[in-house]
């Protein structure tokens, strides 16, 4: 029977949640790296026992941890993230030029094909790559060197590159998302990049349809249809059917189209999930009800999934990297909250159970389906 391993990054450490394929009973292991912020915690699909964790602290800076035995033991990897060439400036919150400064790693994305290759999306926004399992890191400077970079501005959480999506059918095609610059695509392994934000509309910008400047919160892809992308933007849920060349809104009947995570069912490429949040100034669910919304039509028509989720007095948030799906059948859906709960559904979202309720504030949730 398959096993499930859920990797949870929190404000105060990492946790590993494990179950058999029934997903009914869970063991909770942790905290690992107690007291440190774990921005992201993810395993390799090439070697599922290889895990990476981004460990961060205002006092001590950035540490990268790597495990080669599924999280039983850890060793520190390289943490030297140095921008390639002149750092230049981006816009600060007040519109003045501000030099690029490395702050932390928001997202670690192991290669789909090479065991020792892993990408790191960092703040201030840049993409780094390691070909030696995280021991050394090299920036892919074409992204930060894009002609629009001087106009990029940070979102409330900093100017972070938080999403890295690889196209499994087209080696070298990588999508990244930056708050608040938008989505960029490379077709040559990260050397050259182009902004792909046509169709996005952000009323916070002087030109709402600008080439860059959009606060994209998360993008998701089903591996069987890599030309179709789904996006949770600051406001608006969007989709693209042409590899990001153009986007259209599919928010439909959502109670709010603000939110952070978005993900795709493992076996139904038109079934997608979001967690609506009331607004960018409140950052909690509408009406105090924690509801995942599912669309089985690739957007527009959404249904609320509430069974097992708190439907009163709930004011948690679900952050951009804190939702994921396993590959069992029925598909399992997982998400973590800023209140420290990790919820799981073993039936594609119809019913939910809290695996654990009182962790530190959850930043990221990833899942591995193991043989």
């Amino acid at each position: 029977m398959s096993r499930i391993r859920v990797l949870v990054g929190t404000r105060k450490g990492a946790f590993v949640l494990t179950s058999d394929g029934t997903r009914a009973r869970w063991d909770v292991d942790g905290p690992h790296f107690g007291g440190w912020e774990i921005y992201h915690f993810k395993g390799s699909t090439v070697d599922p026992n290889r895990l990476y964790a981004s460990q961060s602290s205002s006092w001590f800076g950035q540490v990268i941890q790597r495990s080669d035995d599924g999280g039983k033991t850890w060793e520190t990897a390289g943490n030297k993230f140095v921008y390639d060439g002149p750092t230049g400036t981006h816009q600060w919150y007040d519109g003045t030029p501000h030099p690029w400064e490395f702050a932390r790693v928001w997202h670690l994305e192991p290669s789909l094909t090479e065991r020792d290759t892993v990408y790191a999306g960092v703040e201030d926004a840049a993409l780094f790559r390691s070909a030696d399992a995280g021991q050394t890191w090299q920036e892919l400077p074409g992204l930060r060197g894009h002609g629009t970079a001087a106009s990029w501005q940070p979102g409330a959480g900093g100017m972070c590159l938080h999403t890295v999506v690889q196209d499994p059918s087209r080696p070298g095609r990588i999508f990244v998302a930056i708050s608040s610059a938008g989505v960029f695509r490379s077709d040559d392994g990260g050397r050259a990049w182009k902004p792909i934000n046509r169709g996005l509309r952000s009323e916070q910008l002087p030109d709402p349809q600008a080439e860059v400047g959009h606060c994209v919160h998360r993008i998701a892809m089903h591996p069987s249809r890599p030309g179709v992308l789904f996006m949770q933007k600051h406001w608006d849920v969007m989709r693209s059917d042409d590899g990001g060349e153009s986007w259209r809104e599919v928010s439909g009947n959502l109670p709010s189209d603000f939110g952070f995570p978005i993900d795709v069912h493992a076996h139904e490429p038109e079934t997608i999930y979001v967690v609506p949040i009331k607004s960018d100034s409140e950052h909690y669910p509408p009406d105090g009800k924690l509801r995942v919304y599912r669309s089985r039509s690739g957007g527009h028509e959404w249904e609320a999934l509430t069974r097992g989720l708190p439907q009163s007095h709930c004011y948690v948030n679900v952050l951009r990297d804190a939702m994921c799906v396993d590959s069992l059948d029925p598909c399992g859906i997982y998400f973590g909250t800023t209140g420290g709960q990790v919820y799981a559904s073993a039936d594609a979202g119809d019913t939910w159970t809290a695996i654990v309720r009182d962790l530190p504030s959850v930043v990221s949730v990833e899942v591995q389906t193991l043989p």
Partner: protein
Amino acid sequence: MIVRVALPAHLRTLARVGGEVKVDVEGPVTTSSVLDALEAMYPMLRGTIRDQVTRRRRPFLRFFACEEDLSHDSPDAPLPGAVASGAEPFLVIGAMAGG
């Protein structure tokens, strides 16, 4: 010279040490030479006390010894004789924060 270094709890955990560490410093005993020796012995501490590129002290850390705050001294200034002799430790202190 054998210099004693006291680290904050999170860095002791990261370096997998239980208490003070002792580092062998060649040449003049300065903040830079002590940290160089510390990072050579415990590479996982690189970047956690001072920036990897600029070599400047991270803002939320301080260096104390012999009841003095040495944080703003030149990193190449000699440390007190009691530190160089091993009679007193070189203290890496994390800023207090929180409620």
